């Protein structure tokens, strides 16, 4: 905990000591030749370290796509693990260039904390997980329960609102990280654990007996998750934004990591040609990149659907259905503005 306070203090001190962090993040990233990306401290599926100690997961995949678009190499990313508490300080102080850490887009974060949110890459909602043997089948039955909650997140506020609105009492047990929450929950030190439903599935998948636990049906909030950057650098915000939109577009038009090069050479579809830079439109140059930016981003980890399937989808231990995160053509909410 000391280290976390230290991070906070350092971040704040950075406000005092750092020479004014200037607007052109793109130039900074190109100059140092790597992208500094903030991720969570560990969350199955969304951000975790593999056997080699490399960061993997849904969020790091988007960092790699941006690095590939900007620097031409998906491996040129340095990851900074952040907690719910330290993430905004890290971003605001310039310690990281972008934050991809299941962060909910809210009014105050956008307007008051001065961040710019890239498009949502995962639509989530807050749920509850309980032991089956408690015999609870609805969140409304949780009155007077002890509930573990990650401190410094929107879930903390939603929880307060939900119990207040339903006139129920509860005992919050604040914890810092998902791992701590899991430990407390498994030790039965709290009756329920609440966080984003995807997070609950992810956490449950790592349990010894996942079937002894259920995620209650109530979803008590909207949690649109997506990467974010500092406000005031529109060029950089645009790069992150359109990298994500390019990955979604790629899924729409069927471009994958495997066939991207071939599609660029062969495709006659103007949409695909514009996306992959086969035409002379020079969209990349408009925000300081070259024509192949989207091609490289797609080749880094595949299109949106491929990334989802690799880390979260039904083939993974998490087993999350696409649901609202399907393409709009499949009845979901993923709808990319056209690249033209």
């Amino acid at each position, binding site marked *: 905990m000391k280290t976390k306070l230290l991070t906070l203090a350092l971040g704040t001190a950075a406000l005092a000591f750092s020479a*004014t962090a200037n607007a052109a993040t793109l130039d900074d990233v190109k100059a140092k030749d790597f992208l500094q990306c903030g991720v969570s401290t560990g969350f199955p599926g969304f951000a975790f370290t593999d056997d080699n100690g490399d960061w993997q997961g849904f969020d790091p995949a988007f960092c790699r796509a941006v690095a590939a678009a900007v620097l031409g190499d998906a491996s040129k990313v340095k990851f900074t693990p952040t907690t719910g508490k330290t993430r905004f300080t890290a971003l605001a102080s310039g310690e990281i260039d972008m934050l991809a850490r299941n962060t909910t887009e809210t009014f105050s974060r956008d307007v*008051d904390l001065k961040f710019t949110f890239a498009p949502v890459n995962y639509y989530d909602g807050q749920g509850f997980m309980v032991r089956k043997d408690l015999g609870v089948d609805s969140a409304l039955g949780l009155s007077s329960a002890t509930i573990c909650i990650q401190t410094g997140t929107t879930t*903390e506020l939603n929880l*307060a609102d939900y119990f*207040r609105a339903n006139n129920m009492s509860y005992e919050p*047990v*604040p914890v810092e990280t998902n791992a701590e929450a899991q430990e407390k929950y498994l030790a039965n030190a709290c009756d329920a654990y609440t966080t984003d439903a995807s997070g609950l599935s992810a956490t449950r998948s790592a349990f010894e007996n996942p079937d002894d636990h259920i995620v209650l049906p109530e979803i008590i909030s909207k949690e649109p998750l997506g990467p974010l950057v500092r406000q005031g650098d529109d060029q950089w915000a645009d790069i992150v934004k359109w990298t994500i939109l390019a990955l979604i577009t790629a899924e729409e038009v069927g471009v994958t990591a495997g066939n991207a090069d071939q599609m660029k050479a062969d495709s006659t579809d103007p949409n695909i040609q514009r996306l992959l830079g086969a035409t002379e439109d020079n969209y990349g140059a408009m925000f300081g990149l070259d024509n192949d930016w989207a091609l490289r981003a797609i080749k880094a980890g595949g299109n949106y659907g491929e990334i989802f399937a690799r880390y979260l989808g039904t083939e993974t231990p998490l087993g999350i259905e696409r649901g609202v995160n399907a393409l709009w053509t499949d009845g979901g909410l993923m709808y990319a503005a056209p690249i033209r």
Partner: protein
Amino acid sequence: MTTATQIVDGPVDSGGFRLSQLIYDSRYRSYTIQVIAMVLFMVAVGWLVDNVIDNFRDLGKEFSFGFLFQPASYDINQTLIDYNSQSPHWRAAVVGILNTLLIAVLGCILATFLGVAIGVARLSKNWLIAKLMTIYIEGFRNVPVLLWILLFSTAFSALLPSPRQTEPMLAGFLTATNRGFYVPATIWSEGAGLLAILFLVSLVAAWIFGRWATARQEATGEILPIFRIRLAIIFLPVLALFFLLGSPMTLDFPELKGFNYQGGLYIRSSFMALWLALSLYTAAFIAENVRAGIQAISKGQTEAAYSLGLPPKRTMNLVILPQALRIIIPPLISQYLNLTKNSSLAIAVGYMDVTGTLGGITLNQTGKEMECLILLMGFYLTISLLISGVMNLYNNAVSLKER
């Protein structure tokens, strides 16, 4: 050779002040250095402040404390004053401050009792006790306090049963669960006010008696068993009135309802873990202070007291302890300060102290890092100075009076 005498330093009578004297004249040189150092310091501070202002402007942030009056929107588990999620941020900060003070005060008290007992025990002639205390002191002093806090917290949540599996112990006076401990709460009914007034009156009476007994001893040399009589003065009337009024107090026993025990007094395991770990850790340091204080008093003092005919207990109370206290108190102050500041590790076990509310959730939800940290540092500074101030007053009271 008049020119030679003018070279030696010292006042130069003719010609008045010359600029080179600022460097070469030892009377002025220290001023020159101090002025330069001061200017450099001010420039550094000015640069930092200017940078903060610049960076705030670049980030589009505004330096203001207005957020303190917006609703906090989060819940806190342990609140000593009325608080709900609609209360403003400043109230959440006050809740945190009170929680910090609670842990600091209770921690200092327990650490002092334990520390004194262990410090004395380490000097025991009993080999086993002395060695056990040595192991305790070295063990606690040489492991970071954060690890002790986590160890206690983990032990409580892993080893104790969950509320539904637990059984009240000691005829219902203690219920230990992995979420916390429940003890019966006292409910005062009519007549409790009278009891409180009588108790205060008894305290005053005991104090007056003490002064009278001292004066009497100085006049006649007779010694009264002051402690026992005082105890009787304080408690006997209160006990008598308590039964006279027909026991105006009932106990509220905790009962298992739904997910948790309800009623009674709930002591969260986060509080217990933090309190015990901080107290046991600090007690190890205090024990060493106590040992050092006692060992610093020369054996001749004891022998002199014995030769005057003072019994061992009076020798300890009137000769050894007053002198040892002078040595013990100053380092004791820093131990109290350490304990108070270490309590900011509370968030490790989810205890909502001021670092957890103002410096944690409020900071995070409002994004006012600079403001929150300034307030937080101001609070810890104030508290530390207050503790030092009070303890220094006490130190002056017991320190050597030279006339």
